[in-house]
């Protein structure tokens, strides 16, 4: 079996909040014991709503936030020991907001060429060649190279962001909500582009999105997060056709479907109430206050992420119940 490209081992990222005048210091467990791996060339969909920790997880994988506990291993080597430059050539990121993710004072050419030069590509012709090549790959024209970000539309800026992420030819790209800030009619363009580039360049993706339609379309495997923990994990088809965690079912039920209005099954699966704060998560299973299946066990025992089938795991005491 192929060595996983990325391996997260009991990863936790805690922040201390408060203290000083306000009184007690609280711990925000943004990521609370995550085990995950991504194989080369695979697309892992990471699903969750606000406060689930997916963005913090992404930053930790990139080496931008130090973990409080656990290990992150890239290509077999622990992240802490790798140098920053080598990590940059292995993992990159595509950001959500195309309007804030480009330096407004740099031309496109400079945004793409600087990283190459920084990583030792000295030959000017080669730099130019690779920049132009990348621009073409993301569907932009050569004359776009000398323009500034504000001259482009949101979709085009996102293409530039993708080009920047791929210019160093990484093996893993974390896409953090790459299309949520874009107009609906151009989302398909960007999703198709990401998939094409994945095949062409042999990339692995972690696709973070709250849009289940997008996640189902692009992922090989899916992990669902809630308040810092992974609550379900498995192949894309299993997760969507046979979800075993009530939260996954609630996410699916929340998608409006014009053909199944006021469906009783759907109504039963919906979660009620608000997402709890990560500062003060409910005891036991974090999802229990909102769960239609809640029982006393759920408040006292934290359910572990255990297998329901080969490669499919769920963290719920009622994981063996089919929907």
């Amino acid at each position, binding site marked *: 079996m192929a060595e996983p490209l990325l391996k997260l081992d009991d990863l936790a990222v805690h922040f201390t909040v408060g203290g000083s005048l306000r009184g007690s210091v609280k711990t925000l467990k943004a990521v609370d014991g995550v085990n995950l791996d991504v194989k080369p060339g695979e697309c892992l969909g990471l699903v969750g709503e606000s406060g689930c920790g997916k963005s913090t997880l992404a930053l930790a994988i990139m080496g931008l936030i130090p973990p409080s506990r656990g290990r992150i291993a890239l290509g077999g080597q622990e992240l802490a020991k790798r140098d920053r430059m080598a990590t940059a050539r292995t993992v990159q990121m595509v950001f959500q907001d195309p309007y804030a993710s480009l330096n407004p004072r740099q031309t496109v050419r400079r945004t793409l060429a600087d990283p190459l030069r920084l990583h030792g590509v000295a030959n000017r012709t080669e730099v130019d060649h690779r920049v132009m090549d990348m621009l073409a790959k993301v569907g932009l024209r050569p004359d776009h190279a000398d323009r500034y970000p504000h001259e482009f539309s949101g979709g085009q800026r996102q293409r530039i962001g993708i080009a920047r992420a791929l210019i160093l030819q990484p093996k893993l790209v974390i896409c953090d909500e790459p299309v949520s800030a874009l107009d609906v009619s151009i989302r398909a363009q960007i999703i198709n582009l990401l998939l094409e580039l994945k095949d062409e360049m042999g990339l692995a993706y972690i696709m973070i999105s709250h849009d289940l339609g997008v996640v189902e*379309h692009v992922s090989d495997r899916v992990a669902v997060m809630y308040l810092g923990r992974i609550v379900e994990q498995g192949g894309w088809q299993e997760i969507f*056709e046979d979800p075993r965690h009530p939260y996954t079912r609630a996410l699916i039920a929340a*998608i*409006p479907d014009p053909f199944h209005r006021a469906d009783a099954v759907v109504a039963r699966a919906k979660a009620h109430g608000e997402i709890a704060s990560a500062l003060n998560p409910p005891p036991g299973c974090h999802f229990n206050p909102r769960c239609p299946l809640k029982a006393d066990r759920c408040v006292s025992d934290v359910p572990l992420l255990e297998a329901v089938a080969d490669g499919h795991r769920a963290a719920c005491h009622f994981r063996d119940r089919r929907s």
Partner: protein
Amino acid sequence: MSTPLLEVRDLQIALAGDGTTYNAVEEVSFQIGRGEAFGLVGESGCGKSITALAVMGLLRRPLSVAGGRIILEGEEIQDASPAEMRRLRGRRIAMIFQEPMTALNPLSPVGRQIAEMFVLHQGASWNEAMDRAEDALRQVRVPSPERRIKDYPHQLSGGMRQRVMIAIALACGPDLLIADEPTTALDVTVQSEIIDLMAELCAAKGTAILMISHDLGLVANMCRRVAVMYAGRIVESQVAQAIFATPRHPYTRGLVDSLPRLGERARHGRQRLREIAGVVPSIAAYPSGCRFNPRCPAVSDICRSISPEVTALAADGLVRCHHHG
């Protein structure tokens, strides 16, 4: 058919630019019946929000109503005076917005903001109004309403704030509730609850809803009829399920086809998403003829020169395309 609650006929909204006037919205016509849920769908810049603002009489310079009629229960209101519009707002037409944090007064407890509605529009005393405010919070399913009435907006989560907005909007039992992207800033599970709540409350009170969103699926699920706007015009209007099952305009078809839907991949394998080429045109550079023509897969010469007329479809539907169907 009985008189519709709201009828908009050939609405035209002008935008005064530097030196020129652009038509941000043109020839927009639709009707909403009593208690009906009607959806207006489009991307950013298509004019859906300013159409709603026009109905509320809230357009400000450089925007203004330049033509057409807005008729509320048989009475024309597009030329109503500001004082007349103030009497209508809150009492007969209410509106909720995408960002409740900016729509709520950060310095006033939420209970008081709801109570204000009763005091201002129904002459209630403050004590009475605060009691009714607590009831209103209960109706929008805020837990522990007796404690929440004292909370300030920043102490509540996004979903809670939106419930407060709904409570304020529905306080005086308006005939029409306009909701402009009310759930776009909310998480998916919370979104679904808020939509259900809105639908339930409005059905119970007989309030009609004008639901504005960029999310076709959301609108089609909640509303009976849906109109799709593109570049300032309505390009298609049909019963919700028909819009999804049999879209007649290439833009609607593009929207429906381009977004991945759950279950598609299991049924047909992963298909390349059908893209809509190009970008949404800016108001200063609307194409001549049919505004969608540069991006349309079915384009022909007539599309580039002549703007298509409205063709009526079954069940009060319409489509604006030379090659519809």
